[in-house]
């Protein structure tokens, strides 16, 4: 994919939610800087993973891409067309190409509609009559996602969580989309069911060539599913790279700490190197100046407080591996310094 335009191009994407306060006249007293200047591209048929802790803005990003939210600033380009502030009418044809899978399989399906009605909903709205009729198409879709086509007339409450998520996937596939934004599609499911749905999504991605923006907090699942991964912290991307580079050679201290905090179901003879971050994620209403991670970073200096590090290819990285840090970690797997557990000593 040399000169072709990416399927989705996001630059400088910003979303600030205003905070209203005061009496009797409410005015804007501040803003939650949920997403603050994101740049990334998604190529056709590619899966980009967005990971980060709660409140880092990954779900907001998903809702901005699907234009369920209006961006405050920046630009979203879909197949060369600027959709940042596109109106309802201009968005209509694009909405059928960008679909979404939601986290909660209980809240995202209408309990009063049959499965057939739910899955054919997108076709109805867009006035699409597939060959052989909508019902035939729905039955096909049910088959693709591994449900019995005979279940056409059943209601969502007759299905288990994993099956409901499959219905959600079938609905997202109904219009043959080019891009699916999946917001924590498996986090509400049991472990054994998670694997079923991940396998299904992977099959869909490969066989139908659909691009994915895969939002999750589970680093192992993102690694399994996405070819490229972006790590977010407090509304910014701190590191983005191919999965091999990101997981094998993390250069941002936060990425490194995040990876070392994931508990793995293995018993090691020698305990793994662990970086323990102290404290919590700061509030996005009043984020730290400069680098937003500096309040929890063991390498922070005055430079980090005054100057926000740009997202660039730091020395020793492969092209496409971008890191936003003034003092990137050494390339390769050198043990990072162990953090003191005592909060007073760290302060």
């Amino acid at each position, binding site marked *: 994919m040399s000169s072709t335009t990416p399927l989705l191009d996001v630059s400088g994407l910003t979303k600030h939610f205003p905070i209203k306060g005061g009496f009797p006249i409410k005015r804007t007293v501040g803003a939650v800087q949920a997403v603050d200047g994101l740049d990334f591209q998604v190529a056709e048929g590619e899966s980009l993973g967005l990971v980060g*802790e*709660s409140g880092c803005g990954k779900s907001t990003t998903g809702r901005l891409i699907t234009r369920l939210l209006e961006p405050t600033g920046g630009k979203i380009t879909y197949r060369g067309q600027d959709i940042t502030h596109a109106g309802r009418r201009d968005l209509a044809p694009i909405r059928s190409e960008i679909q979404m899978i939601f986290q909660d399989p209980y809240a995202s399906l209408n309990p009063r509609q049959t499965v057939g009605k739910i899955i054919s909903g997108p076709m109805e709205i867009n006035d699409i009559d597939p060959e052989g009729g909508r019902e035939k198409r729905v039955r096909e879709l049910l088959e693709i996602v591994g449900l019995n086509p005979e279940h056409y007339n059943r209601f969502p409450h007759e299905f*288990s*969580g*994993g*099956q409901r998520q499959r219905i959600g996937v079938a609905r997202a596939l109904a219009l043959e989309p080019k891009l699916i934004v999946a917001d924590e599609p498996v986090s509400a499911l*049991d*472990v*054994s*069911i*998670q*694997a*079923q749905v*991940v*396998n299904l999504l*992977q*099959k869909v991605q490969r066989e139908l060539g659909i691009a994915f923006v895969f939002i999750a*907090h589970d*680093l*192992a*699942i993102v*690694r*399994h599913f996405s070819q490229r991964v972006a790590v977010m912290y407090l509304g910014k991307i701190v590191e983005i790279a191919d*999965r091999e580079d990101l*997981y094998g050679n993390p250069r941002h201290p936060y990425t490194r*700490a*995040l*990876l070392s*905090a*994931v*508990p*793995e*179901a*293995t*018993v090691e003879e020698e305990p793994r190197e*662990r970086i*323990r*971050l*102290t404290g*919590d*994620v700061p509030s996005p209403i009043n984020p730290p100046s400069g680098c937003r991670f500096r309040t929890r970073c063991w390498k922070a200096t005055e430079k980090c407080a005054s100057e926000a590090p740009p997202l660039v290819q730091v020395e020793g990285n492969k092209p496409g591996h971008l890191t936003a840090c003034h003092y990137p970690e050494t390339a390769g797997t050198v043990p990072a310094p162990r953090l003191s*557990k005592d*909060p*007073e000593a760290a302060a």
Partner: protein
Amino acid sequence: MSTPFLSVRDLKVHFSTEDGIVKAVDGLSFDLEKGKTLGIVGESGSGKSVTNMAILGLHDPRNTALDGEVLLDGKELVTATEKELEQLRGNKMSMIFQDALASLSPYHTIGAQIGETYRKHTGCSKKEARERSVEMLRRVGIPQPDVRVDDYPHQFSGGMRQRAMIAMALVCDPELLIADEPTTALDVTVQAQIMDLLKDLQQEFGTAIIFITHDLGVIADIADDVLVMYGGRCVERGTKKEVLQTPQHPYTLGLLGSMPSLDGPVDVPLSPIPGSPPSLLNPPSGCRFHPRCAFAGQVAGGRCSSERPALEFVDGRAAACHLTPEQKRELFSDYAAARTH
């Protein structure tokens, strides 16, 4: 052999509902020593939380039938009266819940909530209780504990609330601590902090901990022994190392195969367990896992669907499965090989 600190024998918890009797826990036995951590793993509805509610006597007696034996330090809990249990709860045994925000009262300060338990069991003055609360908050790593003790729960972050819950559970130095998914609602970096804290506190006080989770990764980090539950029964038990490295039950194997790892191969699909967890209203006959089991056909005479497999002990390990050890060695090795590169 000395009696273990906590001993659960053939525990049964049945709920009567409009649709029939739900056998949430159906014959569970385990032991726990002081200073050790038992990890209970299972999917939702496997009975892991119900087991521990029953130990603490927190079930609703109007629709719950309890049977079996729970001995805590020699004291029988199943037949104990509410008054006796009240003496023990918060004092000798206590619990940390999953959702810290829902488990804290929004109308009372953190300090008041921690001190309440302490006052009840020691009968000390308000002032002493407050001092104790500050000390507990300091111990669980809350900065400026003498100021934060007067905060309300909404002023705390998620990780701090969970710390406050731990402080509350430990205020009377209980000998048994039950932690029901205490880190599930937290981010990984905060989860790591909380688990370190629990480990430190356990070393300091020698508390016995029952740690309930659905995450085998968390188990690998914190537990000494592991008990795997499925459909209200224990399917496998052993030390952490044994269970994670050489699982003896197809369900444990399936769980491990369902989880992607941070350094495994990426282009092979995961090997999930087909189907979904059983309904406990009408559980499958025989082995409750047999409808989802890949190896059910390998057992002669269809015993998997007709006969409940006993939890058999072999070299201190227990697995409830009809497969013979030879069959397991052969069948599971293929599985294990497929999983590791």
